[in-house]
Every structure is written in C-alpha cells, then in structure tokens.
C-alpha cells in the first residue's frame, strides 16, 4: 500500500543576516546590485539549514508524533507538509485532502460574527459552502459558543475564539491532519475534548501528524514517534522508546528545558533541578523526601505575587499543587534580579511514572502572569519498580501501606 505521507530527503535552508536574499528595501537591493556589477564579493548570506535530509513515511490511518527540542526542525517540516513554505531540496507527497491545524484562529476577523467567521475560516481551510452549511450546527455545538454565534468575534474571550477555531478545523474531515501545539491553550475540559476529537479522527482511519512539546499528549495520541534533532531524524519508532531517546538527548532528567506557554514577559525560567538525599537527582523515589528548585530571572518589579508548582500525571490529572502563598504565609515581591524558588517535600508519595511539572507566576491583581512547562517530565521510581514510561499502574498515589492475609 502506498503511504499517506512520503517525505523523501527534504532539506530546507533559511537565509539569515542582513544581505539575505529576502526582505529588504529597494535601497539594499540596489546596492547589492551595484556590488554585483562591480564584481566585488557580496557579503555572504549566512545560511541556516533547518532540515538536513529528513525522510519518513506515514501509513494511511497512522498517527505519528514529531518531537524534538526547540529549533530541531519540527515546525519547519510541518510548514513544508502543509505547503506554507517549500523545501530547498527533496520531495514529499501527501495523498488525500490535507488539513492543517497550525495555530488555530488565524484568519478570524474580529469585526465579523462567529457565524461569518465559521464560513470564512472554513473556506480558508478548504471547505465548500455546502459542506459548511451541512456541518454548521455540529461545529457550533462542539465549540459550545451557543447563542454568541451571532456576536462579533472581537467580543469573544480568547478561549471562546480558540474553541470556535478548533471546532471549524476539526470538522474539516481531512485525510491527512497536521496538528501543531494547538492543545496548549484552552481550559482543561476543552483540551480533553480536543484530544477526543483527534483520537476520533485517527480511529476513522485518517492520518494524523502531531507536533507538540506536550509529551503526555504525544504519548496519548501516537503509537509511533519521530525524534528530530538539528534538522535530522534521530529516532523513529514506538513512542515509548523514542521518548526515552529524547530524554537521553536532553540530558537524562537533569535538563533544564522549559517551554513558556503563556507569559507577559518580564520573567524567565532559567532552569530547574531536583534534589533527593542532598544530591542532584534524575529520578525521585516514591516516598522519599525531595526538593525541587527553580531558578528565575526577573527584569521587572513584581508586587504581591505568588508561585505555584503543579504536578500532573501523564494523563493530565493534577496530582498536587503547592503555592508559595501558603508556604510563605502571604504574597511575595520580586525586584529585577535572579531568584531561586525551592519547594521542599518531606515525602513524595507518588506512584512510579512520569509527571509533568508546571510552574506558574500569579499576581494578586493580574492573575496568571507567566507559566512554564518544564522538560523533561519528573521521573518517579520505587524500590524494585523502575519508572516504566507511561505505564502507571495502581493510581497516582503511593501509600506506604502493608497488606496481610489471615484466616479468620
């Protein structure tokens, strides 16, 4: 059977630097023209190869995840597959109708009503008018917009816009669906609904390519994964083993990568580390004490703020959250400078597995100011039971209980 997606040795070059053959002013173009005539050597444009010979195939009905560090080439490959940009070399082919969910909501016009935007957005994504009319009710129902559908979109909350946009895109019924990070926004309930919809699309025998920093989501949706690093395919195989390669790549659990999901700027997360038994640890043992330290740099004044560390299981259950508001007995303030924030846990009674750690900065008046999702996930093991990625059995909590069987 021919694959739904066939990517064959794709290379993509971006030109950096001022003399890049790209955006500029007429003046620059003119002077570079003059230099060319004068046989003088033009300043060589700095080339950056975002993709260096990427090849893979995806079968029809398969769902694959593409993961990798920032700048590994994930978004570039998705842009090429969705035909937004062309490769410099190589060839790719896709069979069937292609739908791309790259940052939903682009193409929404704030002046138009929800209804008008559904039609406009649908047309941009490639749906016909009749098709849209047929699916219109379904789209509105899924988005939970209700009677606001005839209100201009500029009066919507960002969450409402998101929901409507996702809803339109999800009803496109493409043969090949390309998804990029969309699920990072929206409330948890709607996120779950989105996962459900993508799962449904997958079960209907459509092909899904999913790109995300949210490894939990990747694990949940994709059996197979491709790991990109520096523009090359480093691993391609079952999700669990590829994720393992990824953790090794980013430093076996001590890495400090974090993706800022929402932020109004001003504060950066420099890194984080876990200490157990007074040593830096890559894993935490169930029930042992541990310390989680975040290093922050602030460039502005923050008054009356508090920090929250939230720990989620891989299936999205909030295991616990700890706020400095309670532990410090009130609000804190940050002047510009560097800080380290430590959460000390006398015991960590969590079942073996992988856990996503989020840190958020809240202001008393501003609400959430910044939020970070740290990478890699926290790995928890127990005596004799090594962390089995993703296969958490026996719940979320580890209770140091004993059991006995006696005849009575």
């Amino acid at each position: 059977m021919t694959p739904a997606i066939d990517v064959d040795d794709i290379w993509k070059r971006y030109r950096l630097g001022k003399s890049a053959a790209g955006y500029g002013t007429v003046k620059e173009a003119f002077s570079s023209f003059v230099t060319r005539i004068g046989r003088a050597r033009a300043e060589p444009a700095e080339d950056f190869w975002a993709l260096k010979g990427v090849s893979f195939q995806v079968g029809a009905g398969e769902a694959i995840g593409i993961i990798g560090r920032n700048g590994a080439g994930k978004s570039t490959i998705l842009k090429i597959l969705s035909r937004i940009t062309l490769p410099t070399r190589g060839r790719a082919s896709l069979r069937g109708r292609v739908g791309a969910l790259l940052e939903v909501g682009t193409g929404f016009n704030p002046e138009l009503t929800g209804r008008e935007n559904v039609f406009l957005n649908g047309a941009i994504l490639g749906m016909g008018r009749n098709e849209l009319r047929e699916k219109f009710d379904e789209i509105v129902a899924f988005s939970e917009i209700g009677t606001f559908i005839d209100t201009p979109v500029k009066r919507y909350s960002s969450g409402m816009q998101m929901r409507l946009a996702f809803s339109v895109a999800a009803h496109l019924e493409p043969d090949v669906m390309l998804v990029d990070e969309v699920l990072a926004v929206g409330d948890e309930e709607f996120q779950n609904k989105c996962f459900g919809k993508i799962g449904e699309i997958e079960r209907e025998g459509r092909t899904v390519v999913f790109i995300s920093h949210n490894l939990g989501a990747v694990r949940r949706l994709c059996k197979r994964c491709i790991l990109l690093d520096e523009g090359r395919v480093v691993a391609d195989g079952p999700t669990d083993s590829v994720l393992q390669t990824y953790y090794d790549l980013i430093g076996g659990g001590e890495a400090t990568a974090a993706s800022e999901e929402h932020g109004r700027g001003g504060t950066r997360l420099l890194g984080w580390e876990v200490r157990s038994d007074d040593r830096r640890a890559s894993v935490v043992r169930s029930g042992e004490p541990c310390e989680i330290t975040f290093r922050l740099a602030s460039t502005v004044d923050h008054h009356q703020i508090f920090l929250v560390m939230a720990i989620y299981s891989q299936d999205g259950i909030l295991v616990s959250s700890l706020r400095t508001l309670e532990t410090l007995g009130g609000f804190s303030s940050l002047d510009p400078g560097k800080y380290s924030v430590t959460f000390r846990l006398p015991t960590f009674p969590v079942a073996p597995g992988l856990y996503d750690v989020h840190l958020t900065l809240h202001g008393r008046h501003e609400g959430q100011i910044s939020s970070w999702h740290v990478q890699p996930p926290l790995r928890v093991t127990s005596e004799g039971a090594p962390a089995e990625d993703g296969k958490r059995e026996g719940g979320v909590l580890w209770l140091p209980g004993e059991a006995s069987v006696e005849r009575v």
Partner: protein
Amino acid sequence: MSTPTEVVIEPARRWPRPRLAELWENRELAFFLVLRNLKALYRQTFIGVAWSLFRPLVTTVIFTIFIRLVKVPTLGIPAPLFVLSGLLPWTFFANSVYWGSLSLVVNAPLVTKIYFPRIVLPLANVLTESVDLVLSLVLLAVLSAVYGVALGAEVLLLPVLLLWLIVTCLSVTLWLAAINVRYRDVAFIVPFMIQIWLYLTPVIYPGQLIPEWGRWAYALNPMVGVVESFRWALVGGPAPTSFIGPSLAVVVVLVVTGWWYFSRTEQTFADVI
C-alpha cells in the same frame, strides 16, 4: 468525498505553471474574502454603504466645478456626467490597486499559517470594489435621467468593459503586491503613483485633447483605453478607437508577466514576509 488527490511538494521552480484550476477550486474562498472585506469595511460606520454614494458624489461636484472654472471641453457631455463616467473606472482602479498591493502583507498571519493560492488575496481586493462600482452606476443612471441623457446600445458592452477593467487592475496589483512582500517601499510609492497616474488618465479631461499623432503613446497607459471606453459606453462621445489597441496590448503583457512574477515569488512569501 472526492477521490484522493495527491499533493506533491517540491522545491521552488523558476518557471512555475499558472495554476488556474486551483484558483477555480478556491472561488468560494475569494467570495468569502470579498464578503469579509465588505462587512469589515462598513461595520460600525454610521452611514455604512451610503459612503459608496457619498464619495463619488462629492468628488464629482468638486471636479465639475474645476472643469467649469478652467473650461475643459467635455465633448458636449454635461460636465457632471463627464466626470462621473470617468471617475467610475478610475476609483475602481485606484482603490483596488491600493488595497490589493497591501493585501499580502496585511494578511501576513494568514499567509504564514495556512496554504491557499495567494492570488486569491489581491483578486478579492479587486473584486470588492465591484460593489462600489455598481452603486456608482446607480448614481450615474440617476444623473443621466436628470440631464436627460439617454443610454445608447453601447451600454450593453459594460460587462466586457468591466472584465477589461478587472484584468487591468489585477495586472498592476499582482506586480505591486508581490514586490511589496520584499520591499515595503511599495506601500509608500503606491499612493504617490496613483496620484500621478490620475493626471495621465483622461478622468477630468477628454483623451481627445491629446494630438492625434501622440495618442498611441498616451494610450500605453492601460487605464486610458479603459476610461475612454467606459465614458463612451455610458454617456456617449467619440468612439475610443485609437486608444484601445495600445492599452489592451500593455494589459496583456502586464497581466502575463505579473502573473508569472507573482507565482514565482509566491513560493517564498511565507519565508520572506
């Protein structure tokens, strides 16, 4: 759903093929974009669509006063009719070229996030102007009745002339919109260019003022043939025979090269914009 199509992705070509079939598939998108432009334009305006009548009316009055003052010959046509019949295609051209040349940059979020034939964007801007044109035609019909000018059979050529006008606008817009992606200078040049262009086009004076021997050169301005033909079809006057040839020839060259240049640079819009 239709039979699975295969999409092949390959590096940019130097000589891209014109993808007319794809443009046709996206006709509904063009329609919705026109609708969006119109709704976004008039929403939250107090007099709304009446603006489309108000603007040509005021311009006509001012130009009529000007024409009377400097005694420009109007070939026996009442001055307001003379002005409005020229203003009609001119306004269409000026507005669609202005908005069309900005269309790719204004819609940059769309261009960098979703694939669709980019030509739909300038095309939609050109088509949006049709609504204003139709409203101005109504205004012209009223004025004609007031001045007791009867329409001739020439008016039946209007659809053909409209097509000619649209292609003329598109030919200029394709060049400017594509260049604007790379060189934002275009945004500054266009308003200035349109202003100069107005004086080179027989809107407030008749093309017949140009001596016979120079008319072919004058008509290398593609709008000359269009404006003269519109005026002839709508309010009478001498047939624009000597202007049509050169203007048409220039438009054909411009639209073919413009389409090619647009299709070629289209391939890198998302990287450059």
